[in-house]
């Protein structure tokens, strides 16, 4: 498990974040949105990114917050 941060241009809803735990969503300026949450691994991250893509959100960036094992 690791914490990841994802930035998008829209507010992600449950459809996008349902695989994440301890989710926090905040807006940087009403335009950029930041999602922080815990995911099992990079594969789970890819699943979230696919869902964002399906939901027509544009990806602005993402990174892993916890150091790799």
């Amino acid at each position, binding site marked *: 498990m690791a914490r990841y941060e994802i930035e998008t241009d*829209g*507010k*992600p*809803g*449950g*459809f*996008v974040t*349902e695989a994440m735990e301890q989710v926090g969503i905040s*807006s940087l300026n*009403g335009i950029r949105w930041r999602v922080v949450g815990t995911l099992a691994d990079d594969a789970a991250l890819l699943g979230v990114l*696919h869902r964002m*893509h*399906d*939901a*027509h*959100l544009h990806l602005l960036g993402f990174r892993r917050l916890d150091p790799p094992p």
Partner: protein
Amino acid sequence: MATSVPRQRLLTRLDRIPPGGTGLLVAPAGSGKSVLLEQWAAAHPELGSCSVDLTPQHNDPVALAAAIVSGLERAGVRVDPQLAAKVAPGGESLGPAAVASLQHALQSHEDRLLLVLDDAHLLRSPALVAELGELALDLPSLCRLVVSSRWDVGLPVRDLRLAGRVVELRAADLAFGPDEGIELLERVSGCDLAADDAATLVARTEGWAVGLQLAAISLRSADDPTSFVQEFAGTDRLVVEYLTEEVLARQKPEVQEFLLDTSVLPWLSAELCDAVTDLDDGRSMLRHLLESSLFVIPLDRRGERYRYHHLVADLLRSVAGGRDPQRQRAARRRAADWFVEHGRVHEAVDQLLASEQWADAAELVRAHAQDHYERGESATLVSWLGAIERGYVDAPVSIGIDLLAAEVASNRFVRAAETHRRLGRRDDVTPGQRVAADALYACAGLDHLPADTVIDLSSEVLRSLSGLEEAEVADFLGVGGAASVRTMSGFMMAIAHFRSGRLDTAADVLEWVTTTEGMEYPLWRVNTLGAQALVRAWQGHLRQAVVLADRALAAADEVHLQQHPATCIAHLALAAVAYQRHEPDQMSRALQDAAARIDGRGRVLRDLLLLLEVRRAALVEGPRRAVELLGDGVADGSGAPIVAGAVVVEVRSAISSGEVGAARVLLDAAVPSTWLAPARIELELAVGDLRAAEHELARWHIDVGQPAQIVEHGVLRCELLAASGDVDAAIGQLHEVLAVAEVEGLRRPLLDRRPVMRLVAASVRRRPDPFLQSLVNAERTASALNSGQSRLVDPLTDRELSVLEYLPTRMTNQEIASTLHLSVNTVKTHLRNIYRKLEAPDRDAAVETASELGVLRPVGG
């Protein structure tokens, strides 16, 4: 859908897909890809159409091949009915034989054809995608391919762009422009929108088709469209979630429940919906949804089957799961029951897995495992059983053993080893389960474990079996149990002995295996007979090897498993026989048959195939080409006969180039093995050190039960005697050798030694003899071929030689392609290479040059 908006600008772009070209539609879900493709196909009724809606099931290449064949047949394309059978079961790709067959079918079709693959992002195997890429790069001019996907899947787009053979439509292209968006909004909503409101909606959704449709549906029941638009424009909520909830909230309660309950289904019919909702209004509901444009898409013309738009279904499921997970679970359970009742196992398992009903899923998979295994759908079994094992807390041991068996069957050896380790850590494994797991682990370890470890494991399994009641031994996939475990373990032990170079022991063990009860199962019978054939071929008992290989293939024929990977060993045995008998064309055919079945098989068999291909290349194209083909060589773990065989190829090449120092280095660096003895003797003969050659000959303890060794030893002794000046003794030795060689048709060891062949030629002149004459003839042909090839800067490959054979016959490219089971484009590529290498401008010149060089063989000769 009646409310869809034709978008001429996009239709015109698709019209520009060139003959033999590819259209790529890459955009998120809900962008209108499928609708656009339907509109385009409808605008071109003159194009025969084969459309495959890809699903996760198609990651099993056997299932994908079946779907493509079915689609092509509906489009009137003549397809090899055995195409799906050519796919190596359990693998991760279609395999070269199936791809070639597909290409041939497309090349041979004489009408224009459109091949559509929808939802390509669901294909997760890079090997499968690579094969689609091959198809795209080699399409005939009458064919067009369109691939639709939510993201780039890894097709060779750059190559297609460079060749000018692709038209791409991406999200930005598919987005509705202002005018298109307004038209869609008005058609679906039935409202006359104010221009500002319409423009706001288009901007807020960025022209995204499903967003616009959801907005339009919401507008139908909005009291004040302008207020709705303002509220929508002002919300920061995810567009699609907001709108889905809006649309849902505006439906009658019974419609909402219907949408949420049936959202779990992969497709909808009245009967299925009634079963899931436990009501009887499925037909009227579906009609209502269709008439209201509520994202129901007809799947047939009769109005009996539908599906939801994928993204909308995802969203509805998400909403349903959030609101009442128990209700959703119950709906899935009812769906699974209906699917089981109607024989639709895949859909039933998917429902049970999605609702985490692990025990029921496991029971259903077990009940149908044998069918899937025998159809080659091991990849599907791995997917199902893996999901169950991961999700099922306290899963019974039997799940793990079934998973292990499926992983072995689909050649996922590393995963199988991990599964075995996990089982080993459990304390609830019975002795009967452990023995089954260990037998499967030995199968998995064939490539990864030292041969002696596999032998020890298999021996331990057989010992343990003797202490158990037959009924105690775990079944796996319906094909396990004590009988299978016994047979499999014997088989693995024999192969391990072969790897160690202990051919006699391997033969003895296999003979014992043929007496076990497990031989009644066709696949074990095919494997065992094939392995017997291989061992016999390696020993030089060539007649026996042919009989055994034929029996293996006949056993496969009886159960329609001619294309199964299990037959690979028999074809390798036939290739080994053909090599020893100096029959290059038979060898080539056997190697092609083996290669077509080897996809996904383990390292040992693949290295064996490589060694035999290299040996053939040495015969036909010369030792230098053989070494090139050897490349990085074979793995040490593939076993002494194979590893040493590869070293011998390199040593002979070095000797033939005069690089005796390099040859010696190779031999000194190699792991000591009796299989290298011939190469050591040849090296000493080459440098003229007869004493050293004598010494090596004396050190080589041959097995008198192996004709191949007897002949090889005898030939080298003959050469040594001749080199020592004792011609009479050499001739005497030669006759002893010939007496053994003729029985089995063992020509190779003689043909490899020119000094000995001079004695053979002299003998023929004195006393004509058919076998001797066949040796002389074979040497002449090989010599001419090699000599001719050696005069080319870039020698012709095996395949190019095969194509060259047909040039004097005046057959057309299409006819040559059909005969050799290649695509026309591939034949043209070979011809271009042939002309270049022979420096010939056309066919006639190529034939003339090839004849002068002596590289032109008669067809089938």
